[in-house]
């Protein structure tokens, strides 16, 4: 298993994509944090002042948006194998396909954790001096800011694992990435506003992610608390990982 983890880790570090996407994730986290802080108190802003606990939490939680990058990285880590046929030497050297997928999931989770930490650090690095300059105290514990940052890391890491599962199910790289983005940006928000299925919304991956970080993403639905959201998102991660594992064992390698 150690062999396979080393091999999968090398696959990530020896191409540029992982580094580029890391920069992208950090940039999006930085952008969202800056926009939120800068726009606070603007003429038509509905947000509570920066001193409010919910505002501080919400700013800390925006870094979780970087899960868009970690889910795409997860998808690409696995679909690249099928696209460039590196799946062949991979499964020739280790025919126990389940082990390969487990190694990939572990490495994807690790990559996700690194992305998450980087985004959380970026968020804190922007918040601390900016709030200090405004003379506002950050309530790390009292206002749940730290919990939101840890939530960011968990969300980003789990989405990387979800990406592996999606990529195994949909081996076509472009289709998998576009399908996932359409789901997250279009289908899930639609579920939230269609009355019949609205009650299912909090249990969908995006909503569960919002619950973990303590930001409120949708209106009109009952939100889960952070722990419930964490369990729901973990269940999604495990579901996709298990699906990926079963599919890889049963299907032919191209």
């Amino acid at each position, binding site marked *: 298993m150690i*062999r*396979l983890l*080393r*091999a999968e880790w*090398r*696959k990530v570090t*020896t*191409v*540029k*994509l992982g580094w580029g996407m890391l920069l992208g994730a950090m940039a999006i986290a930085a952008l969202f944090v800056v926009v939120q802080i800068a726009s606070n108190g603007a003429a038509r802003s509905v947000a509570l002042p920066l001193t409010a606990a919910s505002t501080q939490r919400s700013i800390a939680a925006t870094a979780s948006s970087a899960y868009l990058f970690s889910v795409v990285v997860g998808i690409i880590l696995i679909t*690249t194998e099928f696209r*460039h*046929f*590196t*799946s*062949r*030497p*991979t*499964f*020739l*050297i*280790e*025919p*126990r396909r389940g082990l390969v997928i487990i190694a990939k999931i572990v490495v994807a989770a690790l990559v996700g954790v690194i992305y998450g930490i980087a985004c959380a650090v970026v968020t804190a690095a922007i918040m601390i001096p900016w709030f200090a300059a405004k003379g506002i105290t950050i309530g790390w514990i009292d206002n749940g800011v730290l919990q939101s940052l840890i939530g960011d890391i968990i969300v980003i890491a789990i989405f990387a694992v979800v990406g592996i599962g999606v990529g195994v199910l949909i081996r076509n790289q472009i289709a998998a990435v576009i399908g996932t983005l359409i789901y997250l940006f279009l289908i899930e928000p639609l579920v939230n506003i269609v009355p019949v299925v609205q009650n299912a919304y909090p249990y969908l991956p995006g909503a569960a992610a919002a619950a973990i970080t303590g930001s409120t993403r949708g209106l009109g639905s009952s939100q889960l608390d952070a722990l419930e959201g964490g369990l729901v998102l973990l269940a999604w991660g495990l579901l996709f990982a298990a699906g990926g594992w079963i599919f890889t064992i049963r299907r*032919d*390698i191209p």
Partner: protein
Amino acid sequence: MSAAPPGVDGRIVATGLTKVFGEVKAVDGLTFTVEPGSVTGFLGPNGAGKTTTLRMILGLAAPTSGVGTISGVPYAQLPAPGRTVGAVLEATSFHPGRSARNHLRVFCAAAGLPDRRADEVLEVVGLTQQARYAVRGFSLGMRQRLGLATALLGNPRVLLLDEPANGLDPEGIVWLRSLLRHFADVDGRTVLISSHVLSEVEQTVDRVVIIARGRLIYEGKLADLEGASAGVVVRTPTPDQLATALAPLHVKVTPRADGSVAVAGSTPQAVGRAAWEAHVELHELRAGSSNLEETFLRLTADPAAPPSAGA
């Protein structure tokens, strides 16, 4: 055809291998044996089912029915497949952005081999200078060499190479030939190389397994295939009398465009004797030039062609 016991170390045995994709039988009841210590050519036109057969033997694709074994067991049950079998399949299997050296080091890690193996095999295939370049810029010939390097990482007992000569320059083909001959003759390894062009591997292989439309056409020594193909060319002013004279030999007589006659499945000696005994006047009698490629095309083009001698 061949009922060789599968348990011999390094022997590849396919028994009734069949793969059905939807309605299409890509591989249809394929049975053959590949022996250690020889270079075997796995031949067939494009789409004959060569790659699918190799994928089944290598455990990448599940056979619809039948079994493929290496050293007596299915691929997935080999104790250390990465160190027992080295294989390259048709499409080049590299991430374009990864350097040759890093590509090999990924698989060193996976197979539990020391990283220096990467540099060793790069040396063997002559890619040391290009080791640190991304595969993106590699020519087809360089990719073939890198593929071979990947297969050689674990110093395997058995080599399966899909179209290894494809894209190599003439010098590269000579190099590949001597390398593969060395593996088989000196090391006693099993070498199976596929190709859709017989002439490409003609001088490299001892034995051939020829398939077409997923079925076995011929299995045996290349030399026997060549003998079977050589016909006799005869020129006579009385072709009808010659045909009557040759009737007892049960050979196929066909007129050729230049007015001569081709006699398939016989020798100049037998034809000359029959003509002499029947007092048929001959103006020319010679062995037809044995064109292996022609034989190959004929065998693989005609679904009704019977397996030739030597199998």
